[in-house]
């Protein structure tokens, strides 16, 4: 008890003495944790909402039957299943968007309310149940959603489904505990009538034995275990979540270095006190524990602040994740934006664990201080100096291991996710971290003469300062290196992506006007446009050609795959200048690069596709680039849509106008002829290109935010290190003051040191960033998203960015150097 009390007093007095350093470390940890947790919340809630249609209404059912070749399961098949078991529930799902300013994405569920086994579903039902069945447009809403939008019982709301506006009457509410906020519940019979659907999206079923159902299962339906379906759904967005978590964890890593630096400084400053404690009977274990506890307290405080910050940040990150998932995968609206106990515990665990690990080396150094050596300067720098060579060898080993592991993944693709490359990048970062002391020494040797020549006395002192505190300055260098590497790698990735996308846009988006349903927010929509749009278009003489595109959710080898159906004749005519009237009738298919990579498909291969007419073999005619989906994507001619899928509808239209026809006038004319009930978005070519790039920016919005925060953390790292060095060098600063050195000159010395270390860090960061961007573009991107992109390095922009980065780093040092004036020169000197 007494020991604990003593610990408490010592730690408190240490914190008081090292106020600024402690605060900086806490901020560093807090920002790292906040970033990681907010990204985790965003991605986890994104996945949860994404999967909600699988698990939310499925309570009590262990299997589901889904169509593989069409949008719906036939009512006849439902009847057959109901003869096998009564324990089943038919479900229709339809995407919709609320006709309001925010445009919330809502999922309409047509269900047989008596088959829903969700616990207390009825208990929460507030309206008149009879109305729900008898009124064709009656719906039940989530109570929170209704409260947020001030919707009361019997109010009407407008929803856009595909390109049509529908008015619904609210006849009840369910609790958020029962179903998510973006669910709209309808009676299945009403739903089928209202939307003219003659089938079901899925059948939820409880089966002890699947044999009987499997026997009657047609080839174009799949019987899937609910858990399996959840996993399949999760795997679709997994790449997105892994990527973000990976980047945000790097920020935690920088926070780790800041904390390491703080505890290390505390040990050096407290050496005499440690000596006294050892003299009065403190054991080595006590000292070790003391500094570990100190680190843990910083970690705990940082984590608590990080949790509060994470809550604020998550409002932003959730909105970004929502937009990204809605664009690339399926429309979602995330309402669950608050941290839960799991997130809090995760933050505390990561914060405290990282802090303890960061404190261990320093705590060990502290425990080695003997009462006799306490008055001597720390031997840490000297003892670390002996380890530089070993550290360098380890660094080289780790770097090469990281490269080899990533290379192995590049060649073999052993997992669905680029897990080895993530590990590889971390190994490379650690490798670079370990080589920094030797690198800094070499860097100093190279720049010694020019620096001395340019800055004479100031340069000389700062060079010697750095040489004398290589370990300390290496910590600052690592902070700068990691953040610049992160910035450079993402800059190269985003720029390369943008260039590839721009080229792709120029090659593929040749049409003059693009039409899609307003409710369609993703890159692909599955709800077809109403026939009235096609009918109206027939009257326009300025139209040269139309590519009627249809998307279907298909399966290939049991895995979700996008099927697109286009007028190949039109597409080839405008994109490749190929005039081949028979191109569509050939049993050929175009496969996306991702599909080709994932299933090891080459041009000329024959692939078997499950269609409503049975399995049909198609020859792979070409492999194309696409940046609009992260699933495998196959494009057939519309001929096959009609012949095998028996459909002739469209989800989006690409219109090619005759020469001389004006897109804007065409759009005006079209809009004036559309009935008010039709809700479609019409874009001319330029607006569409701008929109594509906007979507691109939106997709990377969260990445930009992560980069900024990671950069702020690294600036804190730099400030922290320079501040630490100023504290350590207060004796030398005092000597200089005694012998007539002005404050400005002393500040210049530290600015010079920061400039040298900053330059060294940015240079190493440039190399590290290059390596990371290569791995991200050539391995992670391909495995995660199936996007093959060429690397474009915008040298002049990178140079500009690095200069900006450098200036920011140097400017950040103004904060700690202002502390120099506060040093008590008389107290800091040994008379």
């Amino acid at each position, binding site marked *: 008890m007494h020991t604990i009390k003593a610990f408490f007093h010592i730690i408190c007095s240490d914190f008081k003495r090292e106020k600024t350093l402690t605060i900086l470390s806490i901020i560093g940890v807090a920002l790292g944790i906040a970033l990681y947790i907010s990204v985790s919340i965003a991605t986890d809630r994104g996945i949860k909402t994404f999967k909600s249609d699988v698990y939310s209404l499925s309570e009590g059912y262990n299997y589901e039957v889904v169509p593989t070749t069409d949008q719906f399961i036939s009512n006849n098949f439902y009847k057959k299943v109901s003869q096998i078991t009564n324990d089943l529930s038919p479900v229709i799902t339809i995407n919709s968007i609320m006709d309001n300013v925010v445009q919330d994405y809502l999922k309409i569920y047509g269900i047989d309310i008596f088959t829903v086994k969700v616990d207390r579903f009825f208990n929460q039902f507030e309206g008149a149940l009879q109305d729900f069945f008898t009124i064709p447009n009656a719906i039940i809403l989530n109570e929170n959603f209704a409260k947020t939008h001030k919707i009361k019982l019997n109010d009407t709301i407008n929803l856009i489904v595909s390109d049509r506006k529908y008015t619904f009457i609210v006849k009840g509410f369910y609790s958020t505990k029962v179903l998510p906020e973006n669910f709209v519940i309808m009676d299945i019979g009403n739903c089928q009538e209202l939307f003219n659907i003659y089938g079901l999206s899925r059948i939820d079923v409880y089966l002890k034995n699947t044999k009987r159902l499997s026997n009657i299962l047609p080839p174009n339906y799949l019987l899937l275990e609910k858990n399996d379906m959840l996993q399949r759904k999760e795997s679709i967005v997994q790449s997105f979540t892994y990527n973000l978590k990976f980047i945000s964890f790097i920020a935690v890593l920088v926070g780790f270095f800041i904390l390491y630096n703080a505890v290390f400084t505390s040990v050096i400053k407290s050496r005499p006190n440690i000596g006294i404690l050892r003299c009065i009977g403190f054991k080595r274990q006590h000292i070790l524990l003391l500094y570990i506890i100190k680190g843990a307290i910083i970690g705990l405080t940082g984590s608590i602040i990080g949790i509060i910050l994470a809550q604020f940040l998550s409002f932003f990150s959730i909105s970004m994740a929502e937009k990204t998932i809605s664009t690339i995968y399926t429309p979602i609206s995330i309402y669950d934006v608050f941290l839960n106990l799991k997130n809090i515990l995760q933050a505390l665990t990561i914060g405290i664990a990282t802090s303890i690990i960061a404190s261990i080396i320093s705590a060990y150094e502290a425990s080695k201080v003997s009462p006799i050596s306490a008055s001597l300067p720390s031997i840490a720098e000297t003892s670390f100096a002996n380890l530089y060579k070993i550290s360098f060898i380890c660094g080289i080993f780790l770097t090469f291991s990281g490269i080899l592991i990533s290379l192995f993944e590049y060649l073999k693709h052993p997992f669905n996710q680029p897990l080895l490359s993530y590990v590889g990048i971390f190994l490379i970062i650690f490798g670079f971290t370990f080589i920094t002391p030797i690198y800094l020494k070499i860097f100093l040797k190279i720049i010694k003469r020019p620096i001395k020549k340019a800055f004479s006395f100031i340069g000389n002192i700062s060079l010697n300062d750095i040489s004398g505190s290589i370990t300390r300055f290496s910590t600052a260098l690592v902070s700068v290196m990691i953040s610049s590497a992160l910035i450079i790698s993402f800059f190269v990735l985003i720029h390369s992506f943008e260039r590839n996308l721009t080229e792709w846009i120029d090659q593929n988006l040749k049409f003059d006007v693009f039409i899609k349903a307003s409710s369609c927010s993703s890159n692909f929509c599955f709800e077809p446009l109403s026939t009235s749009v096609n009918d109206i278009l027939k009257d326009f003489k300025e139209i040269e050609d139309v590519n009627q595109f249809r998307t279907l959710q298909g399966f290939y080898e049991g895995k979700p795959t996008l099927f697109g159906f286009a007028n190949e004749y039109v597409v080839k005519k405008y994109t490749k200048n190929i005039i081949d009237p028979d191109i569509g009738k050939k049993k050929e298919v175009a496969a996306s690069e991702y599909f080709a990579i994932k299933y090891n498909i080459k041009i000329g291969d024959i692939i078997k596709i499950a269609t409503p007419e049975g399995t049909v073999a198609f020859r792979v005619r070409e492999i194309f680039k696409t940046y609009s989906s992260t699933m495998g994507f196959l494009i057939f001619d519309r001929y096959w849509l009609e012949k095998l899928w028996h459909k002739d509808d469209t989800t989006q239209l690409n219109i090619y106008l005759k020469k001389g026809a004006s897109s804007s006038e065409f759009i005006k004319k079209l809009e004036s002829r559309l009935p008010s009930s039709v809700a479609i978005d019409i874009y001319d070519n330029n607006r569409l290109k701008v929109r594509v790039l906007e979507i691109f920016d939106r997709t990377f919005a969260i990445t930009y935010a992560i980069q900024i925060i990671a950069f702020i953390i690294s600036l804190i790292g730099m400030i922290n290190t320079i501040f630490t060095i100023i504290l350590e060098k207060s004796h030398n600063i005092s000597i200089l003051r005694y012998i*007539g050195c002005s404050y400005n000159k002393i500040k210049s010395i530290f600015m010079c040191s920061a400039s040298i270390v900053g330059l060294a860090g940015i240079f190493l960061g440039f190399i590290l960033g290059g390596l990371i961007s290569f791995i991200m573009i050539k391995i992670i991107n391909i495995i995660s998203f199936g996007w093959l992109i060429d690397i474009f390095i915008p040298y002049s922009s990178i140079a500009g960015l690095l200069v900006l980065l450098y200036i920011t780093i140097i400017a950040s040092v103004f904060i700690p150097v202002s502390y120099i004036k506060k040093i008590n020169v008389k107290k800091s000197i040994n008379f």
Partner: protein
Amino acid sequence: MIEAINIHKYYGNQHVLKGINFRINRSQFIAIMGRSGSGKTTLLNILSGLDWPDEGSIYVNGNRLNFTNDTKMTEYRQKKVGFIFQFFNLLDNLTLFDNVAIPLYLNKKYDTKKVLDTLVRVGLINHKDKLPAQLSGGERQRGAIARALIHNPEMIFADEPTGSLDSETGESILKLLKSLHTESKTTIVLVTHDNLVAKWAENIIHISDGVIE
């Protein structure tokens, strides 16, 4: 010439200097002597412009030191003052050569030859590339002396310069100081509690409980 007139200094409730008056002429070698806590170091800090009196004035060559102007006080120390401390206070990361050269850099009069000559003068030319940690106590103090005199200051303030040295080394340091004083005619103000050390000075000012006896 340095003239202190009615210097008072307080640290909180503690009255450290209680009306100090003295005058040190140009080229004088003077010792300020007193026991620990008598106010010697405070007085030295005030004379060098690092601390300021709460009352009274210091005149150097007839000019009143303006303690409120940090730039001027820094310039004063840079050009006119040299410092020697008990614990040497050389910059630990710089070689002896670089340490000695600092005042020349600060005065923008860097001259390699002068640094080398000064090191020869204090007998440390063979150690010029060593770091302070690689030198003995006496060698470090010689280095500190070289740094104090290289820019030909008008006065050198030495605070217990032999305090951390053995008697033999201490004596050699004092001999060196004396001979330098003889050669360069620099005013030397030596602060000590040791009677034997004080004897090396031409005049002794005794200070006790903040007053000159």
